[in-house]
């Protein structure tokens, strides 16, 4: 059974990861950048989801909300992911066994699948898919699921720090 631990130990031993890990500013800067990008990303996703479930921005057609916000959500997701990866790589053995990190990443994957499924469905119908009755139902479901999943991602992310549970 191949263990990933030796690889993680090697990463931990690298000069640059060690330097960041042992510096006073390294971890705070990366972590704060991570949180700030997530807040921006998830905040915009929540705005879109509130539209999907019909609670806000109802003057804007569904398709527009999605199309116009998507690039900005992605713009925030890139630094969020990069800083997240960096956080792990700088201290891999600390996070490797952390159950909340595992939960968080699984939830992110599920949220991604939910988003992808909705994207594929809506881009298949053309033009005025806002008026499509099927779309309204699926949009509501996709939005509700997304709200739940991303809230859970935020919570599990916060719980990572409670490593003494593990």
């Amino acid at each position, binding site marked *: 059974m191949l263990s990933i631990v030796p690889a993680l130990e090697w990463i931990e031993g690298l000069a640059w990861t060690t330097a960041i890990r042992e510096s006073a500013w390294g971890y705070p800067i990366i972590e704060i950048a991570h949180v700030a990008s997530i807040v*921006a990303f*998830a*905040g915009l996703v929540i*705005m879109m989801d509130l539209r999907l479930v019909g609670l806000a921005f109802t003057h804007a057609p569904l398709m527009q909300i999605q199309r116009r916000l998507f690039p900005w959500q992605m713009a925030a997701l890139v630094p969020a992911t990069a800083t997240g990866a960096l956080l792990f790589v700088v201290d891999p053995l600390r996070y490797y066994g952390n159950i909340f990190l595992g939960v968080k990443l699984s939830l992110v994957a599920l949220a991604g699948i939910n988003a992808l499924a909705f994207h594929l469905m809506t881009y298949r119908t053309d033009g005025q898919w806002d008026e499509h009755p099927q779309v309204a139902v699926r949009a509501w479901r996709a939005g509700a699921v997304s709200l739940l999943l991303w809230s859970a991602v*935020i919570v599990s992310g916060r719980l990572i720090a409670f490593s003494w549970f593990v």
Partner: protein
Amino acid sequence: MSQAYRESLWLFTATQSLHLVSITTFVGAILIVDLRLLGWGLVRQSLARTARSAQRILLWAGLAVLATGIPQFTANALSYSRSPVFTFKMCLLAAALVFTATLRRHVTVADEGRLPVWVPRAVGAVSLVLWMSVTISGRLITFYG
């Protein structure tokens, strides 16, 4: 109440979780309007209508942030009151709130044609910087409070 709050891990976790989600929702509502002020995002919708919808979210999410923030604050009031980082964050927050409730609000409801183009852009940029700074200083409390 502070005692019960400190001693119940579940209560603390639940409250803080709601706090984090409310903050994220609040910032999202800020961002969507700031993007629009900068001429991005929901450009096909009127600024005023987007801002009005966002304002409802700001009020509800803001209420939730307050409601979930107060138990956390009172449980650690003494250490917070001694923390310069916490004081700094609160001042920044106050500035951001005042700016949002006055100048920014005025610009979002004004007729879009009447103000020079640079005004909403400047307001959007300032708002973005202010609110992201509040978010960042909030995290700084954990490290340097």
